[in-house]
């Protein structure tokens, strides 16, 4: 029996009244002008809300009540590193000396900003073991793409741009890896994972030749396991003149304990919104800093923040640069947050990050081993990959367990990634969770696994404690409605007069198949 916590939320467009406004705008004190004489034809209609400020604030407050965040509860999401986002970071990022600066104001007027960029670069160099850092990429996928661009430029500079057509990517990799490779004009060849959960060296050898531009490897892998052959793999790639990129999504397992630059990698990307606590914001801003070795340095995006004697400068004189990958310097106010975070740890405490992250993940794995076994039985790093395969015979998929966790007050873990583990649950507690929280979470999962056997329907119907139950994602595609319209008409898909049924049906079938196998 479902009980709703709050009344059904209305759209902002269904609230308000003509003539209302929700803020106290700057009063214009310059002379009036004939607007149409100055700018030409103006628009006749603009269907934006007309609500008062209090009305508008209540609207968002109610929306926040039906949204889960780290401060609501635990996020065991593998590969997302949903750690606590320190509030002090919000204070420092709001300092007007940072927030009220324009990216195109003269360099000489923003020495403080250059200091921030430079210091973050220097700290990240040391943490990652690379020779150079660029902070210009604005998200993880963007950082991956930028690294691939560096590799492309490197090969082109050696006259091998045309020859080296392929990027090798493990079948366990995050989808952004092949997507980023495609964005750089590369074709992808897949390599396998062996029974122990490591890169299958035989499958690597099979595809490795001088047409390969590089390998993208996540270390620790998306299975949460450290690649013991990493130095050997890097050497294999280097021996054929190819490069190796480290997907740094799992850097949380390594901070202060080991450095990808020492493993043999040529470049890596970092997710500052994972490892370095900048807030995830519901899907961004991300922050995709990259690290690279000297031989890739000529190709860095411009401008490069570096020291010229004692002064910090923005260096644009870089003839081999790949150019710009984003408008300005990257996610500057996120760099301020990351810098604040790093300085709160310092050299004395920074290794605590990886040590406690790894401890917490192993603890969860150990507590759950009787109900959700590991996909690969060995110590995990900062995340563990467990399988719910044994409950298939009860008609239960990993998705059902995840949805039932919501009723116990937890955000689900990562489902169905990596693709190579059936019915997988990838759990990354992070270092900022107390033992009590981990115990509550494990107790909940243990109870749910018992329910899976004794009362599977309770899982099938879950969740029943939220404002909505499971949503019809097939219908979302079939009856595509991605905006409100004044008359109430929805925007049909594909521009077909019958509302896009033709194309939508095919998409609907695919979506249904996907929805039934994914979360």
């Amino acid at each position, binding site marked *: 029996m479902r009980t709703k916590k709050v009344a059904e939320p209305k759209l902002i467009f269904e609230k308000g009244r003509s003539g209302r*406004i929700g803020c106290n705008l700057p009063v214009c004190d310059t002379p009036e002008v004939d607007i149409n004489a100055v700018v030409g034809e103006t628009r006749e209609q603009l269907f934006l809300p007309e609500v008062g400020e209090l009305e508008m604030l209540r609207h968002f407050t109610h929306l926040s009540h039906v*949204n*889960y965040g780290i401060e609501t509860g635990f996020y065991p999401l593998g590969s997302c590193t949903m750690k606590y986002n320190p509030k002090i970071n919000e204070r420092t990022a709001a300092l007007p000396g*940072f927030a*009220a*600066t324009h990216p195109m104001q003269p360099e000489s007027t*923003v020495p403080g900003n250059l200091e921030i960029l430079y210091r973050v670069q220097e700290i990240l160099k040391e943490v990652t073991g690379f020779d150079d850092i660029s902070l210009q990429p604005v998200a993880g996928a963007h950082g991956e793409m930028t690294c691939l661009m560096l590799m492309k430029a490197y090969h082109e500079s050696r006259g091998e741009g045309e020859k080296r057509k392929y990027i090798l990517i493990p079948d366990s990799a995050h989808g952004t890896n092949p997507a980023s490779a495609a964005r750089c004009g590369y074709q992808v060849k897949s390599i396998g994972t062996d029974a122990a959960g490591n890169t299958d060296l035989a499958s690597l050898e099979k595809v490795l030749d001088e047409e390969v531009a590089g390998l993208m490897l996540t270390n620790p892998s998306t299975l949460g396991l450290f690649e013991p052959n990493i130095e050997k793999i890097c050497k294999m790639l280097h021996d054929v003149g190819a490069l190796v990129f480290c997907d740094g999504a799992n850097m949380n397992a390594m901070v202060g304990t080991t450095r990808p630059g020492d493993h043999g990698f040529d470049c890596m990307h970092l997710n500052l919104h994972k490892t370095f606590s900048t807030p995830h914001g519901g899907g961004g801003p991300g922050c995709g800093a990259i690290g690279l070795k000297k031989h890739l340095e000529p190709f860095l995006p411009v401008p490069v923040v570096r020291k010229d004697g004692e002064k910090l400068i923005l260096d644009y004189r870089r003839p081999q640069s790949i150019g710009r990958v984003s408008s300005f310097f990257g996610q500057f106010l996120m760099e301020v947050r990351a810098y*604040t975070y790093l300085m709160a740890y310092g050299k004395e405490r920074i290794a605590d990050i990886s040590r406690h992250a790894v401890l917490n993940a192993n603890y969860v794995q150990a507590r759950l081993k009787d109900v959700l076994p590991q996909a690969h039985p060995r110590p995990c790093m900062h995340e563990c990959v467990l399988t719910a395969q044994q409950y298939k015979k009860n008609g239960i998929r990993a998705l059902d367990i995840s949805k039932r966790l919501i009723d116990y007050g937890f955000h689900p873990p990562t489902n169905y990634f990596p693709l190579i583990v059936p019915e997988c649950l990838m759990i990354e507690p992070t270092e900022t969770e107390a033992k009590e929280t981990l115990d509550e979470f494990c107790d909940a999962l243990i109870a749910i696994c018992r329910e899976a056997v004794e009362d599977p329907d309770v899982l099938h119907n879950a969740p029943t404690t939220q404002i909505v139950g499971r949503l019809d994602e097939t219908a979302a595609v079939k009856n595509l409605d991605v905006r409100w319209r004044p008359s109430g008409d929805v925007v049909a898909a594909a521009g077909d007069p019958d509302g896009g049924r033709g194309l939508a049906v095919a998409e609907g079938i695919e979506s249904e198949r996907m929805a039934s196998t994914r979360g």
Partner: protein
Amino acid sequence: MLATIGAKTIDELFRDIPENLRVKGQLNIPSFLDEARLYGHLSELSRRNANLVKTVCFLGAGIYDRYVPASVAAVISRGEFLTAYTPYQPELSQGYLQSIYEFQTMVAELYGMDIANASMYDGATSMAEAAILSHGVKGRTKICVSGAVHPHYRQVLDTYCWSVGLDVHTLSTEDGATANFDGVDQEAACVVVQYPNFFGTIEDLGIARDKARAAGAMFIVVADPIACGLLKPPGEFDADIVVGEGQPLGIAMGFGGPLLGLFACKKEFVRRIPGRIVGRTTDHDGNPGYVMTLRTREQDIKREKATSNICTNEALMALAATVYMEALGKNGIRSVAESTVRNTQYAIKKLTEAGAKLRFAGKVFGEFVIELPKDPLEVQTALLEHHILAGLPLGPYYSELKNCMLVAVTETRTKEQINDYAAKLAEVLR
């Protein structure tokens, strides 16, 4: 905890890492600071800058000093929004998902388009993605972009196009507007113009549209969202895709990041668009709800065949823009745009009286180019002494405009500030 795991030390848990790859001792980074000292340290660094609360800003060039209502920070600092994960679990994310649906609606409405996505990184990468989309649709490899589009955006476009093997052809300008459409031919995938353009000029979008149509190319507009609250939006000129920078919609200038990429288009392209998109549906009890939809375009499902590699975007900034657009609403956006026009016209009058010359003849919205009898860099330096950021010297970007400066005047500028700028300019030019 170690007992439960069956290990004696945390070090044991790292045994898969070869000994030679383990960090020995401490990393060579600064010592930690307690919170009080940390805040003091960051404050001190911030005070080394000339911030634009103390210095009056007449610099635009894509990032604008607009007034951000207090309600924006109040909403986006709520932990439920600030620290939320991507809404892959819609049952726990209806708050965000509904706000994105509202965002999509308002962006599409401002631009006069059918649909908009949940955000991109910034205006520049949004434009690059639109160009790549046009290549996917038309199968052609030439991207025609006006020289009056923001130079940084064109640099990003150059990088993206090099990366995927497309060619960029720049359309030259005259008198501050796109003039030469040679090269917009059967090999062109798209024509890209900016509205208002980088110089502040309001170009006639019908001209670029007709050239694009004649060549069978797509018509892409990079548009300022506030300007579109007043001017005829690009959708009314039959634009195929409209992209832009959403920073003026309630986001701090922040030295250029984080920003907010806007992406809107005709509904026929919905399955090709990059980025996330939220749709409305129902749950199995018939209650309305929102989900991320058309997911088969995205990287986690389609991998190398995805419409883009974008995953994380600018959701929190989109939320800031949502709050801004709802706080201002229909009346406020129009008001801000009209104030911008009034202030800009007044500034043109006063600065030309002070000795500057208006460089281009076209209609302008909130920005214009002045020609100065002295080196604009010197003028800018001199005016900084008076806490005025005079504008952007254009020499580094357009060699034919090395005597010129790009000046922006938003609704936050007052008559007194504009008078002061003119007075100080007159002094400097004497």
